[in-house]
């Protein structure tokens, strides 16, 4: 009997947890999910492209400086990486994004 009571108490507690969003907001102004709209998704993808391009450029510079990449290979690749980075930044400008903050720049990674 005692275990049946414990089970009932557990069930009640868990049902309350499940119902919590409705108990907290019985009549919200909006019940719509905060989904990304097409513009936000384009912005997110552009930011991913920017981060990818800048990280690739940074890694190439670091590899070249550490001697992993030969001068010849460096010269063959750096131009296209810079073009990609510039294009990604221009795309973000067109979408009106904020610039990448100074706190997220990565000077230390230049020496790995």
């Amino acid at each position, binding site marked *: 009997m005692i*275990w*049946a009571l*414990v*089970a009932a108490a*557990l*069930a009640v507690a*868990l049902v309350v*947890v*499940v*119902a*919590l*969003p*409705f108990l907290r*907001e019985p009549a*919200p*102004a*909006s*019940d*719509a*999910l*905060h*989904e*990304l*709209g097409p*513009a*936000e*998704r384009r*912005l*997110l*993808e552009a*930011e*991913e*492209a920017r*981060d*990818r391009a800048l990280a*690739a450029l940074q*890694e*190439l510079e670091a*590899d070249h*400086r*550490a*001697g*992993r*990449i*030969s001068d*010849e*290979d460096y010269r*063959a*690749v750096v131009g296209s*990486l810079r073009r990609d980075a510039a294009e990604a930044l221009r795309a973000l400008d067109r979408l009106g994004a*904020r610039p*990448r*903050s100074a*706190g*997220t720049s*990565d000077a*230390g*990674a230049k*020496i*790995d």
Partner: protein
Amino acid sequence: MAELGRAALLLTLGLSAYALLAGGFAAWKGRRRLAHSARNALIASFFSTLVAALVLVVGFLRDDFSLRYVAEHSSRALPTQYKFSAFWGGQEGSLLLWLLILTGYAALAVWLARKRARDLVVWVTPVLAGIALGFTWLLVAVSSPFDVAAAPQDGSGLNPSLQNPYMVIHPVALYLGYVGLAVPFAFAMGALLSGRTDERWIVATRRWTIVAWTALGVGQLLGAHWAYVEVGWGGYYAWDPVENAALMPWLAATAFLHSVMIQEKRGMLRIWNVTLVSLAFCLSLFGTFLTRSGVVTSIHSFTKSSIGPWFLGFIVVAVVFAVGMIWLRLPQLRTTAKLESLVSREAAFLYNNLLLVALCLTILWGTAWPMVSEAVRGESVVVGRPYYDFFLRIFGLPLLLLMGIAPLVAWRRASLRGLVRTFVWPGAVALATGVTLIAFGAGSSIPGLVAYSFAAFVLATIVHEFARGTAARRALTGEPVPTALSRLIGRNRRRYGGYVVHAAIVLLAIGVAGSSAYDSVAEKRLTPGQSLEVAGYTLTYRSLGERDGPNATEVRALLDVRRGGKDLGTVEAGKNSYSVEQQVSNEVGIRTDYLTGEDLFVIAEQVRDDGAVFFRVFVKPLVNLIWLAGFVFVLGSVIALWPDAREERRLATRYASARERSDTPATT
């Protein structure tokens, strides 16, 4: 207490069904409160499952034999630690452990990702809930650990092979790996369901994948060591179906961890990545099916059961769902980025992926073919060690070499001249190693020689990498070597953690090659006073003794060990006779040389009443490097997993900007 356990599992069933249905509906219709409620239900299902698990643990610790599962897997004399591990000694407990880990992972994953990828999490919730629902259904309707019967005076005891310290931790580690692969799978499917095929599912699951992959790797090594010290046949891996079952998802996850870098760096291989993550998860289900269904005979499988068809159905649903979703989203997954050169890092990673997947699929074929043959043709066939060894050499040796090459090739394209310059030193080290080994008479095994030369090449590239990076940092900052080295690693944890993991794989390869290609074996029936010689060791059988253990009678043969005229002490080998279980187990004797990593491994195959013993003795060079590899592997994984504050800031900025914009229209 059984009713509390049953009620808790029924609650998990209800909660996961609600999370699946309400979560799916909320995601489809965009209902915020319902989505949060479904997420809460998924989190709550962990707590109800935890209660069920605690009930079973208490049942074992209190010798509650009215629980049929406890009566069948424990006894009063069973030592307490094995009463605890008897929890997963049978099918029902194993399934409950699977469910407990799954709901735990699910609760943590959706909670941690709720801010950065909230539109993704609403779709991830029903996927994880669907998986949890399947397992809960098995536990409630097919194979319950809370069935009760009239309590016998004592239980049947636990299989003696499971009465080993490794069995306390090995299954848990393995399940943490198997089940952990459900998280990246669920996020991948969530991304496909929602049509959000950007990088967020990869960012959200990067660490989960490494955690699951590490646990699966560690679980396999623990299982190998358990087989080595407990099963008593002189080896650690026998290409047993259940062993293969854990190796296959690990190989697929390894391929995924590499290919995902190409998506992050170049935006390529999106279709391939969701395919790999689905393959890894489906193989983890297949692994559980092999272990739990009783369809294969294995030293690791302790179950005969009727859940096989349910599991097969589960696997079919997962495969059809994954293939259907990938097919549906193909247009969004296609990318414009192309492979620019066959000599580039992405190309090298691609070769690595093809080799890993080829190895995985050949192992799958070797594992599944006996079952397929028996089911379709009614003929039993055995796919033996030569098949697996052949493909391990064909695919494994090039993989080993690629581990040294791939990290040092430039992205996009690299010139052959640049490559030659980069690899001149590692190549010279590999060549010198090969020549030295031949000079010392190690040319008897060509695969072993090639493996050692490639291993030397990879180790040289890794050491060179650390040395070069540290020197470059010192040149710029003037830091002392330890500071420069630690900051070098701290600045790029994934890269240097990856190198440490590669070093672990090299140690593993050296240990496997040494212990399998260059081992020695001798067999002889000895009476007290007689000796046996093997690989420079002389073993003299001194005496046979008997003693009482906690729940077994232990018979031990004592042998004196000498080498080169030097006394190396004694080693004991024998058998344990378990009275409750009515079984006998081999208890091997192992003498480890910590300086060379070599083991002297003694099996007392037959113990006769007149005191004569038939011994089988192995000398296994370098075998301990395999176990050392486990520690290095964990170290590398921890380095790669450790949070990177700069990376976190960058991602926080990226996602905060998108979130702020998405919040604006919804709240106005």
